[in-house]
């Protein structure tokens, strides 16, 4: 008797289902001393992380294999999921904004001290880290107050300027020239130059923007710090953005927009590749605030752009002329669930040595390495970049090189951001962190979108007050889930 067609179809689908469910899984790469090394990044970054770091560590440590894995930006979700299953990477790359929370939740292994109480990190290793980063590394975790990660880089914000626009302006207006921007500028200098460099056509449309920057938390945090503001109370239990410094920062931004017409805010947050950076790359903006990561991008995509970068301006003289530069930071850490924690710690220390730090700058040139001896070396003054195809140089660069002669215009400013300011003796660079930093920065973006909107009539202290109240409400809710001890 022939089986019916329906029976056959059902059987085929049932077998297919069973095959999918029961198919034996292939084993992942494992071994007695195989380290899991995880980063986020783009494919070409394998040339550094895989080919130089993973393979380099293997070469330097016979018997150790490194299983390199690269993910997209949302790697923190993966770290959380792994931790829930009791697993983790032997060496992991993470952002400083995630660091303190991960340490507090017991996701990281302490690096500065072994379980038996012996010290691991040498004085030289700690001394190589820029001063403004060292204090941020100490945090609380299950293994006590200590260092749970070491920094890879330090990405500062800077003032980019289009030299051709300034030169053209000075040619047309010799009676009121604009000086070449420098780290000695204050808010007043910046505002005056932006106003002068703004160019409009006969119908009043803006042809050249005097100044531009993405409307997100970092520019506000910069102006806030330059006006003397402090984000959090020393114990981190309260948010202080509704202080007079917040009002100063907001009113400064709005004055450039409304009174001067030199700044046209694009209220869309930080856009990479579609925001104010494109207008600057196209030569439509005179002054531009953005991060060190933009430089290699401009060098590759806008080779004819005649620009340079200098430190951000100081605060107004009436407020002390404080120098402050907001910065980001990426860290290397070892998961609390690492299969080979000692090898992982060894690799983290190896990764933060000057040689590896220079490799990072030489290839990717995203941000200066968090290693003072690397920054002070001659190798920091030029980079080789990454060719798209090493066998065919004609195809150009994935990451543009920085010849020695471009050091002054591209990277010299970075050294100033981590050098103590002669006026105050403090390092201008600062990294905004706090237990509720992410929530605070989201509130800042909402606040800026409201305050800088053309139709807004609310005063600065009112929008700041609401943002601060919202953050405090979030903090109160956070107290119940143990995020504030």
């Amino acid at each position: 008797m022939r089986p019916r067609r329906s029976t056959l179809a059902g059987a085929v689908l049932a077998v297919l289902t069973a095959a999918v469910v029961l198919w034996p899984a292939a084993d992942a790469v494992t071994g007695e001393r195989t380290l899991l090394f995880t980063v986020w990044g783009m494919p070409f970054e394998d040339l550094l992380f895989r080919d130089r770091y993973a393979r380099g560590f293997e070469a330097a440590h016979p018997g150790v294999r490194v299983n390199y894995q690269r993910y997209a930006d949302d790697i923190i979700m993966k770290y959380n999921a792994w931790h829930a299953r009791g697993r983790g990477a032997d060496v992991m790359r993470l952002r400083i904004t995630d660091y303190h929370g991960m340490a507090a939740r017991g996701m990281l292994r302490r690096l500065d001290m072994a379980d038996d109480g012996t010290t691991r990190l040498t004085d030289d290793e700690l001394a190589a880290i820029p001063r403004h980063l060292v204090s941020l590394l100490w945090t609380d975790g299950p293994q006590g107050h200590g260092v749970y990660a070491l920094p890879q880089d330090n990405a500062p914000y800077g003032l980019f300027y289009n030299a051709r626009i300034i030169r053209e302006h000075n040619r047309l207006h010799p009676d009121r020239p604009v000086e070449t921007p420098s780290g000695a500028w204050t808010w007043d200098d910046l505002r005056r130059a932006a106003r002068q460099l703004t160019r409009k056509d006969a119908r009043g449309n803006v042809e050249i923007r005097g100044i531009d920057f993405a409307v997100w938390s970092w520019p506000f945090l910069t102006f806030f710090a330059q006006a003397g503001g402090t984000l959090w109370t020393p114990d981190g239990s309260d948010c202080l953005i509704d202080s007079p410094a917040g009002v100063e920062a907001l009113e400064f931004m709005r004055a450039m927009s409304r009174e001067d017409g030199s700044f046209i805010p694009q209220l869309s947050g930080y856009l990479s590749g579609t925001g104010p950076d494109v207008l600057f790359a196209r030569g439509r903006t005179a002054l531009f605030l953005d991060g060190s990561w933009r430089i290699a991008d401009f060098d590759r995509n806008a080779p004819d752009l005649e620009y340079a970068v200098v430190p951000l301006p100081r605060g107004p003289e009436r407020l002390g002329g404080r120098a402050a530069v907001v910065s980001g930071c990426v860290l290397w850490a070892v998961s609390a669930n690492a299969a080979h924690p000692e090898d992982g710690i060894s690799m983290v220390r190896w990764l933060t040595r000057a040689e590896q730090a220079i490799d990072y700058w030489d290839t990717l040139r995203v941000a200066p390495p968090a290693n003072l001896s690397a920054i002070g070396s001659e190798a920091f003054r030029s980079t080789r970049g990454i060719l798209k195809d090493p066998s065919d140089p004609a195809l150009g660069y994935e990451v543009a090189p920085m010849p020695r002669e471009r050091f002054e215009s591209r990277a010299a400013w970075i050294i100033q951001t981590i050098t103590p300011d002669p006026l105050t003796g403090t390092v201008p660079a600062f990294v905004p962190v706090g237990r509720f930093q992410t929530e605070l920065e989201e509130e800042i973006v909402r606040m800026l979108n409201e305050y800088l909107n053309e139709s807004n009539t609310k005063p600065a202290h009112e929008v700041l007050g609401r943002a601060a109240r919202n953050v405090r409400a979030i903090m109160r809710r956070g107290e119940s889930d143990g995020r504030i001890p």
Partner: protein
Amino acid sequence: MAGVAGAAVDLVAEEVVVAAAGVAAAATAVVGVAAAVEVVVGGARVVATRPPAAAGDRPSTPRNVTWIGPGTCCSARFLWYRVPAMRGPGPIQRAVAHLAVYAIALSMLAPFAWMVLTSLKTDQEVLSGTASALPSGPPWRWRWQNYTDALVGARLGEYYLNSLVAAVLTTILAGFHNALAGFAFAKMRFRGRRVIFAVTIATMMMPVQVCFIFAYLIAGRLGFIDNMQALVVPFLASGFGIFYMRQAVSLVPDSLLDAGRIDGMTDFELFWTLVRPTVWPAISALAIFTFVGSWNSFFWPLIVIDSAGRKTLPLGVAELATGRLVLSWPTRMAAATLITLPLIIVFMVFQRAFVRGIALTGVKE
């Protein structure tokens, strides 16, 4: 047939000769629109009638139907309501309407055109202030290399295969399981049916982010991590799919299934022989939803896939957009074009069934 409601109508007869199983299907299909169906089998006449619909009425199931087994030839006579002819729009109105429709369609195509054209430019062209919409030079000088960069350099070719296998397997198996479960909930009587269905519906209320840690832990215990099963097994059935298919299957008249049972069919044969062909448009629509969902899925693969060789296309595209450093818009647009292409093909193939499926599940018996 909304056009009938309230209009002066009369009846028109249409006689067809079909196989008996065809009559059953045809009668089911015309229930919503025919005034009556008259089936003649071996000289005996069976008539199913329905009164003209009043405004706002919904079509009702014909009564007095005797269903006949497969293999018997018969004739069926459908009596249709004749709808008074309506005056169509004039040529100018039509031209304006067409222009408006084409303009809207073109505006929707614009982002796709921009994506494809950008994918053929150089990095410098994209950022150049004087760039035109078209890449510079003749087409053979456009930067087709961006596609090679995306496929080989960013390993999207490898990820393409992973995505395709996962999406096809998920679509076939989920379509089967959801339809089978929908059939069970709609047409079978068993203890706890309502409660189980309510629980199934409840799963639709929870965003995946809420329960992904638990799902991940379960997947880990079952060994569904960093393999193809991790991408397929959790989606072999879904609350939405079961609900959708249950709605579609509930439109199939019980009398049709009763006829099958009289013919000695098992429950699975009823599903396969009578229900599946009837709800095929709904299955096709669900297949599109499932394929698109699997193809675009980012969050779950991000969590469960660890090895580079097992990643899916959305993960690869996300990597091209990772970081704030060097961005290559042409390469990203090439990747976006590659990831969009299969969806367009799937939609074009299933377009008609998709629309019918949506319409079908929007109508109750």
